[in-house]
Structure formats: C-alpha cells, structure tokens
C-alpha cells in the first residue's frame, strides 16, 4: 500500500459509486432519509481532490490528512465511520517501512475494528458492518498466505453475499432501525456502498 495506490483506488471507487448512485439513493430513500449516497460521493470527491497535497507525503501523514478530510467534509454516520477507519490506519506501526499485502490486511482489519467500536454495531443489524466485519475476518485468514489473489475472489464473494443478506434483516442500528418490520425487503444502502468499494478494490488488486 502506497499513497499512489490510495489515490488510484479512490478514483476507481469514485467511478463505480457514481455509476451506481441512483440505486443506492433509492435504497436509502426506502429505509433511510436519502443522504448516504451524497455523503459518500462528497467524501470520495474530497479525497480525490487531495491528490496534489498528499502525493509526496509519507503514508502515515497522507492517511491522516485523508482521515481529517473525510471526518470534516462528510458528516453523518459515514463521515464518522470512514474517518475513524482512516485515522486508525494512519496510526498503524511501521508505516515508514514497506507496506506489503500482510501489513495492508492488518491495517484494514484494525480500521474495521475501530469502526465497529465507534458505531457499536455488529453483524446482523442491517448496516455496512454486515459487509465489513466478515470481510475483515476473511482478510485475517488470508494474511500471511503467499497466494492471496484467489483469496481476494472469496472476499468479493463474501461481500456480495453479506450485502444481499441485509435484505431480509430487521434493522436494529442506524436510521433504518426506526422502521421495524418495514425495513425488511430492502438491502441496506451502507452495505451496498461498502460492498461496491470492496469489490472495486479487490478486483483492482487481482488485476495488477
């Protein structure tokens, strides 16, 4: 993982989120209040725009700037959660040394753990954590394995399955939780956007 990797991933994710924005917006209007997609899009735009100010920085500093930008520029639950994610990654030890696949996995795992604590949400509550926690568990299995590309295909599969599984869940956290039974039958918009992010990044890593 490098600063240029982060920037190119942000661009890739931005493209995919933009292509799927209408779907995510509708999902959020069904069970939330429709702000999720705008928050995610605003956040990605801010991160992509950071390119010039972070491209020559050490990884830890770049991650910190991304964290502060996400935290101050997005708002809502997404801003706090993704801000926490990047802030935690920035605090990882030994970022001045080479960050290989193992190390990157560890950083993502610790980032997702911090999001879980911040949001006090676990698997089965119809939120983005339904996708992110199983993905984190799979990455934990994959790290230290030499052949990780096939493993990333499994990550893609898990993210998709878990995203789809939110459809029939009752929501107990987040805005959809106020709906009770009426939240059933709709995929959680945060789970969908998280799955798209994971899908895009994994595919990019596999193909390079």
């Amino acid at each position: 993982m490098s600063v240029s990797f982060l920037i190119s991933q942000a661009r890739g994710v931005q493209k995919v989120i933009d292509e799927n924005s209408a779907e995510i917006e509708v999902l959020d209007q069904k069970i939330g209040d429709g702000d999720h997609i705008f928050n995610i899009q605003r956040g990605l735009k801010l991160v992509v725009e950071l390119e010039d100010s972070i491209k020559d920085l050490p990884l830890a500093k770049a991650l910190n700037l991304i964290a502060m930008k996400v935290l101050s520029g997005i708002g809502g639950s997404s801003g706090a959660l993704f801000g926490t994610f990047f802030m935690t990654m920035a605090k990882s030890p030994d970022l001045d040394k080479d960050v290989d696949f193992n190390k990157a996995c560890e950083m993502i795992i610790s980032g997702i753990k911090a999001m879980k604590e911040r949001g006090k949400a676990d698997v089965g509550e119809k939120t983005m954590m339904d996708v992110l926690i199983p993905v984190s568990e799979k990455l934990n299995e994959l790290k230290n394995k030499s052949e990780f590309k096939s493993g990333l295909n499994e990550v893609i599969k898990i993210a998709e399955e878990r995203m789809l599984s939110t459809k029939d869940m009752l929501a107990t956290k987040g805005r959809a939780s106020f709906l009770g039974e009426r939240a059933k039958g709709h995929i959680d918009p945060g789970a969908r956007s998280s799955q798209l992010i994971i899908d895009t990044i994994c595919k990019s890593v596999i193909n390079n």
Partner: protein
Amino acid sequence: MKKFINNNDDFLKESLTGFGKAHSDIINVNLDPSFVSRKNKTKDGKVSLISGGGSGHEPMHGGFVGHGMLDAACPGFVFSAPTPDQMQAAAEHVDSGAGVLFIVKNYSGDIMNFQMGAEMYSGKNDSIVTNDDVAVEDSTFTTGRRGVAATVLVEKIVGSLAEHSGSLEECKKLGEKVNKNAGTMGVAFTSCTVPAAGKPTFDIGDDEMEFGVGIHGEPGRKREKIQPSKTIVGNILEAILDNLKPEKNEKNLLFVNGMGGTPLTELYLVYEDACQILQSKGVQVTKSLVGNYCTSLEMQGASITLLKCDDEILKHWDSPVHTAAMRWGM
C-alpha cells in the same frame, strides 16, 4: 424541485451567512468549520450549551443560540450530522472554563460525531442525548427512540439553568429529567425534498399520511388514509399519554410543532383539538408553545409534544430568553 437555490454546493453557506446578517444583534456565524455562537462572550463560570445536527430543521438549532438558551450550534449538511471539528471549534470558542454540555438528538450519525468532537475537545465536557419520539419502540438492543421536538424544550429549560449558574452536572441532570418527562409524535401529509436529491424523499398519496414520521421524512409507524384533525390528534395523544402517564394533578406543557409546510392556522387548530382531548382525560395544560421550531424542510405535518412539568421545569421555562427564534421576558 422548486426552491430558492443558486447552486447546491453553496446552499448551506449562503443560508447561514444570511442568518448571521439577519440576526447580527444576537449571534455570529463562523464558516469553515461552521458554527453559530452568541455575539457576546460566555460569562465566566457559566456552563456552555452546544447543540447541533443536520440542517433543514430550522430554526433548530441556530435559532436557539442566545441568552437563556444555547451558546453555540453546529449545523451539518441538510439532514446529515455535523462533523467533530465543528463541535471542537465551537467548544473552544464558547467555553469560559465552566465546561460544555453537548445536547445531542438520538441519531447514530449525531451520536458518533458528537462523541468524536467531545473526545477531540480537551476541556471539561459532558453530553445529554434526547430521545422523546414515542413512535419508535425503545430497546437496549436498538438505536432506540429518536430525538425530536422536545430537544427544543430541553435547550430552553437547561439554557435557563446554565444562565442561573447551574453546574455542568446540574445542567445534565435537568436535561435528562426534561427529556424523560417529554413525549413526542409526529404526522406528515407530504414529503420533503433534500436540495441535493432534487426530488421528494418519499412518495405519499394525496389522501395519505405517515403516522409517527421522523424529522427527516423517514417513515414512522404506519401509512394511513388521512382523517379529521381530532382523530389524528387523538391518536397521537393516546400514544404519548400511554408512554408518559401523567398524574391527574400534574402540570403539563403542550407543544404543537409545525414541520415547515403547515400554516400556523392549522397548528392552532391542532392545539385546540389537543387541549380539548387532554381536558376530557383530566390532563392539565398550563404552558404552551405553538409554531415551527423543529422542522423538516417544507414537509406538511405537525408533531405534538407533552412535557410533564415540576416547579423547577416551570421556573426555567418561564425565565427570559432572547434568541432568533424564541424570545420572551427580555
């Protein structure tokens, strides 16, 4: 979408700037990070009250900054929680050393961002979370009830105690009492349109209403055919009374709040219906508030809040207040 808007990116900034100019005798508006603060510095020894939340609920919260209520308010984007740097900057700006009490509505995004703001602020601080919406089932396993219109009452009553030298601990305690003594439920006739979305948040038929609606147009208990005001008000009050169970001799404040698109004429009619129904049930109404205080953009609809009042609450309700949206006694 028909709105007074130039371009979406500047929507909030332009509105906040106008708010600052229109009320420059009471407040200052700081941009980047955005917060509204009192024109005058917090006096030494006075606890500072800071609230905030997504924009689109005006006059909440910026309209409640001023003597007898808030010291600062942090507006987020429309219907999105404000960010931790706003809370940190506002706290650093207003705290006179007596500490900061954050007043937070119970929504996941608000809770998380205020928590982070509180962690980032080095001064003494504490928080209270409002959750007065009886439309939502409360449970320790869920996000729980939403914080809605009673937040206005909490800000007024705790604001008075802070003005009267209440400590951070006492302010928190009173805020929690007011929140516990209050119950709210709302009904919407139309949706609202978030400017960035450009279209209504939900579809609703001409003859339908959303019963138990939230302040972001998020769905409530059920979708029903519209009924006469007395029936709607009766159903709302039934849910509130079921929850609050006021005693016969207890004094109550009745608050009819407009969602933004319903004329005052109708809100007063709702107030009259509510008074009659409460009287028939032996519930005493001794204080009133009617108007658009906790809105949902241009949504048509109203919420009713009942607050059980003891002498302490009554005293602090009546005390002078001077903000953009609420003013009496001075």
